[in-house]
């Protein structure tokens, strides 16, 4: 008996998936870690003990103590407050990148997967873009556009859109061969309607999983951009900027660079665990696509 083609695609998001998620241990750990950082960002105005850019020149390079829990940097700014506000900027950039890459990835990927005539050209261009290590492409674009938060988002989105496009294209290629798509075509549905109503909703699962991984990548990459000076310009607190602030004082004041790095690790680890959990819950058959 031939395997039904329906078994080749992702399971739809349903109550079963939710139940699997809640029972998934790494999902829960990931959710906790990530929620912690998100809460830190959302509640920054209330929980940060000091304004992020307030200098205290009498207390520069201060060791962690009971006023400055995580110490101070070279201008006497509170590292904890900067990390808390930094999480706002870093998460915002990550979120924007995820939204933009998912949006364009869905468009480009479904066009490439659905209209085979355009597939070759589009995928060639995507291959070309993927020939640059993602971070390098982002650095180059950010450098060309100039350092700002918006430009960091643009640069990272350009660097990671080929990934989402590929993921969407791959599942569209499978879904477009399904009976219900043929049925829709047979009753005379237009291309746009078929794409939006029938193909995309059924190709979305791998994209959702990929989005959590891109979120993680974007946070890591934002730190790199800021660190080498092509991200949001100082004194804006971002994880990368704070690490960069401390890099020349690693000997005297290691805490400046240490804590923002731990914050990044929490975010990224949390997102990676979330992604693993989502992947297992939404589609146990899906291969590791990273």
């Amino acid at each position: 008996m031939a395997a039904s083609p329906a078994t080749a695609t992702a399971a739809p998001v349903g109550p079963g998936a939710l139940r699997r998620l809640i029972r998934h241990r790494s999902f829960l750990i990931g959710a906790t870690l990530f929620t912690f950082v998100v809460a830190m960002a959302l509640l920054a105005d209330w929980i940060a003990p000091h304004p992020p850019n307030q200098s205290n020149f009498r207390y520069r390079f201060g060791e962690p103590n009971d006023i400055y829990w995580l110490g101070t940097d070279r201008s006497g700014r509170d590292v904890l407050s900067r990390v808390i506000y930094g999480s706002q900027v870093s998460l915002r950039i990550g979120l924007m990148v995820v939204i933009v890459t998912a949006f364009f990835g869905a468009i480009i990927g479904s066009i490439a997967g659905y209209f085979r005539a355009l597939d070759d050209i589009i995928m060639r261009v995507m291959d070309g873009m993927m020939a640059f290590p993602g971070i390098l492409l982002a650095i180059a674009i950010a450098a060309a556009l100039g350092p700002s938060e918006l430009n960091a988002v643009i640069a990272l989105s350009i660097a990671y859109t080929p990934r989402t496009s590929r993921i969407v294209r791959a599942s569209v290629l499978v879904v477009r061969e399904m009976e219900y798509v043929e049925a829709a075509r047979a009753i005379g549905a237009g291309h746009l309607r078929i794409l939006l109503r029938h193909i995309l909703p059924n190709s979305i699962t791998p994209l959702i999983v990929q989005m959590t991984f891109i979120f993680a990548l974007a946070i890591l990459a934002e730190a790199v951009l800021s660190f080498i000076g092509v991200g949001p310009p100082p004194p804006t607190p971002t994880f990368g900027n704070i690490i960069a602030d401390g890099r020349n004082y690693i000997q005297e004041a290691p805490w400046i660079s240490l804590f923002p790095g731990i914050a990044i690790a929490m975010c990224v680890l949390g997102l990676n665990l979330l992604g693993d959990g989502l992947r297992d819950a939404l589609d146990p058959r899906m291969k590791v696509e990273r």
Partner: protein
Amino acid sequence: MFAFIVGRILAAIPVLVIVSLLTFVIIYFVPGDVASELAGPTATPDEIEQIRDRLGLNQPFVTRLVSWYGALLQGDLGHSFLLNQTVSHAILERLPVTLSVTAYALVIVLLIGMTTGIIAAVRANTWVDQGMMGIALIGLSLPDFWLGLVMIYVFAVVLGWMPTGGYVEFSESPLGWLRMTTMPALSLALTQVGLLARMTRSGMLEVLRQDYVRTARAKGLPGWMVVGKHALANVMVQVVTVVGVSVGILLGGQIVIESVFSLPGVGRLIVGAILRRDYPVIQGGLLLTATIFVVVNLIVDLLYAYFDPRIRYGR
């Protein structure tokens, strides 16, 4: 096999064309006036105009594109705005540093990543497996440049075992080279070790369920041969594809790591060029890194065929 190689090489050409085009376009669309920045704040409009003429910035897009490709085909990447060097010279001089550290990191990734993955798979669902995979996941969640800073603090500042940065050529002193490159290579490698360990584990688990592994056991092969030969040879097919991606990430990571550890490589050259808006160097560095990546992926494809006879024989 020959047809396969030729086919792969031909397929790499359009990618290279797009890579070079992208490199050009990114720099072409740089907002702001490069010429006035180069001339400095005290320059007169005439001087700025002169610079613009000299750099060909007044030419239309197509003319500049044609001359960029014309020069490129002759291996000419232009002249640095700031260094008194041609771009190709500046890059070639620093390439050995970047390549040797990347290769070193890759060796670490393969050795530790695969060993960990194999052990975790053979001991699947034990505490060994869970511990290793937990560490792997944490590893791939750490920013590499930050890890570099932490290693400098721990091993150079606190323990004093390692220098905080600098470089010695391998030909000059292999041991000195190791001293200078071990920390950079380790911090570069760690995220990829985590990734490869996870990949190897899942690949190995899949392979260990295959019928031919059962056959190998039924033949009376000892356990190390079943895992280390029959299973591993099939896992390699999967690992090789990951390695291509890893090399790209290692090359990308190198850009920052070289700055952290003061290694005189291409990455630090590019970062310096970015900060000082030395566009020809940025362009050249981008193009070269991407080309290396394309070549590596070509090698990966060939290795893939080496490890999988079904591909070698064109199925």
